[in-house]
């Protein structure tokens, strides 16, 4: 594929290198002549010097024939303008990286729609989801990344005493706004359908809007189930820390956040009423000791500075934190963190790289991800004019057990569909597809 990468910072350079090693044709644009020279000499890609938001520069970079444009300069506005221009000039999919949350909010103004960009991503938010997943359950279906991050997936075990055990799925009274995505029993995982009967000990994944998921959980848990809350300490209250704290449910986690800036602390304590926000420097051993870093289940360092993250991670480990994760941006550091006793290093580059790989698709597929066990894949699909799936309601489509529409995104809003919903051109759906019938199912979405 032909890929245009705008911006050759740490992230852009890494992505360009990765795509080039996978034998894609990559062109990089950066405004810094020094960066451009370095890339031209070190990587097997073409680098062009210039401002990514100028049409002449984009044109030189062959924007008209590109399959994907990734706008990852350090400037939100440049990224939005450039991604929008690329799309208008003929690039098939365009993606912009932004930092400021306002660009992803659509209540006052819908940037993604107005500028006709396929995806506006926040690396801080994606990184937070990655951390959230690692804390909650690394094997669960990674839907948080899809549908502008409005879905929640919760995996749980069906308790013997629960009202759901022994019932068929179609007979369960599941609240609207939630679907059962997958079922796992004896090491096998499959897409749930109405005929499946639940056994005690099965693992089910609930997909839906967060409130509805919380309500649905009581159906599957035993009445006496009251496990104690896990304790999480987050060092750094930037965008990543904020999204991480916000996506861990206060029902299951007790969260303490350390942040140095007084104003930011005040702001955070308003936004996150269930989180204990402490004004403190997470680099000080005495502070970590006093605030109980040694007794937490998870310690996450995301201060925005690699060295601080590694330092506080090492301290927390030494004090006795059960599991330690750090955000580490520099590729050359990734190697040492494991040796220092840090359980997991997450980087924005890797997070974006994974996201980008998901975008390298043909036809109506926007992105895809395979689940760890390999039997189910999650697709984000664009519904196009004339495809078979628009001809009937979801219940009437021959999808049972093979493909499950977990969510529909229409006009920027995400909801969990009901059986009588019908797909319309312009919708984007999140679908779980059984690997064995991938081809058959996807052909229903493409125009014959």
């Amino acid at each position: 594929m032909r890929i245009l990468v705008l911006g050759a910072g740490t992230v852009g350079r890494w992505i360009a290198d990765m795509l080039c090693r996978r034998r894609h044709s990559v062109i990089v644009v950066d405004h810094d002549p020094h960066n451009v020279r370095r890339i031209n000499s070190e990587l097997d890609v073409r680098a062009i010097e210039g401002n990514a938001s100028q049409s002449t520069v984009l044109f030189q970079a062959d924007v008209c024939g590109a399959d994907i444009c990734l706008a990852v300069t350090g400037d939100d506005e440049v990224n939005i303008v450039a991604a929008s221009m690329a799309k208008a000039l003929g690039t098939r999919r365009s993606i912009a990286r932004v930092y400021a949350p306002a660009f992803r909010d659509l209540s006052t103004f819908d940037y993604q729609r107005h500028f006709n960009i396929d995806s506006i991503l926040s690396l801080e938010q994606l990184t937070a989801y990655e951390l959230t997943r690692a804390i909650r359950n690394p094997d669960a279906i990674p839907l948080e990344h899809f549908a502008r991050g409005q879905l929640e997936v919760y995996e749980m075990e069906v308790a013997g005493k629960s009202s759901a055990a022994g019932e068929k799925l179609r007979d369960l009274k599941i609240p609207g706004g939630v679907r059962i995505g997958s079922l796992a029993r004896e090491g096998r995982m499959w897409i749930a359908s109405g005929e499946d009967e639940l056994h005690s000990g099965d693992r089910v994944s609930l997909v839906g809007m967060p409130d509805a998921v919380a309500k649905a959980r009581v159906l599957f848990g035993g009445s006496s189930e009251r496990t104690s809350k896990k304790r999480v300490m987050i060092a750094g209250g930037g965008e990543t820390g904020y999204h991480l704290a916000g996506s861990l449910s206060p029902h299951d986690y007790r969260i303490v956040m350390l942040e140095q800036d007084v104003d930011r602390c005040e702001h955070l304590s308003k936004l996150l009423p269930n989180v204990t926000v402490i004004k403190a420097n997470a680099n000080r051993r005495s502070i970590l000791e006093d605030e109980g870093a040694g007794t937490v289940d998870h310690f996450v360092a995301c201060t925005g500075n690699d060295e601080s993250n590694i330092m506080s991670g090492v301290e927390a480990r030494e004090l006795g934190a059960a599991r330690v994760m750090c955000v580490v941006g520099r590729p050359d550091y990734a190697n040492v963190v494991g040796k220092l006793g840090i359980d997991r290093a997450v980087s924005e580059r890797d997070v974006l790289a994974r996201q980008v790989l998901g975008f390298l698709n043909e036809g109506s597929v926007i992105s895809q991800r395979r689940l760890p066990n390999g039997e189910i894949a999650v697709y984000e699909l664009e519904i196009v004019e004339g495809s078979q799936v628009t001809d009937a309601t979801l219940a009437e489509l021959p999808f049972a057990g093979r493909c499950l529409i977990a969510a529909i995104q229409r006009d920027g809003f995400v909801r969990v569909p009901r059986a009588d919903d019908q797909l319309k051109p312009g919708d984007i759906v999140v679908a779980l597809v059984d690997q064995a019938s991938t081809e058959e199912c996807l052909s229903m979405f493409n125009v014959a």
Partner: protein
Amino acid sequence: MKFADFINTKAIRAELKAVSKEEVIQELVQSLLDAGQIEADQKDDIISAIMKREELGSTGIGRGVAVPHTKHPSVQKLVGTVGVSSEGVDFDSLDGERVQLFFLLISPPERPGDHLRALENISRQLRDENFCRFLKQSKTPEDISQLLQEADDNQFVSG
């Protein structure tokens, strides 16, 4: 676009009881529910969507005015209401002033144009000092609704 196109007169509230940002939003969304403009089971979701928008930056635009808003798929057309608080409410406005006059809007996502035209209409009409002051001094919904009517008839700003 005119006020009559999106402000529901039955939902207008003079003398708001609310004393905090969240209470104002709750009271005004409730007024739209009472007027039959939104569905009861969507109320909480709408309130939290409006609050979430406020977290990104207050919609208090200064001079004692705020325009809390959101898009929501449960409404079929743009719906809005007006509320006046005689004491004023701390709404984290940019100029730090308490807010007395509220325009609350909920619009369907598939009509972004209407949404923007309504916001534009509100801010254009409020540029008129007298209109703004009279609204804040209103004691009954009838007074407010009459002022909106006069504004629609171009009696305050031209065009």
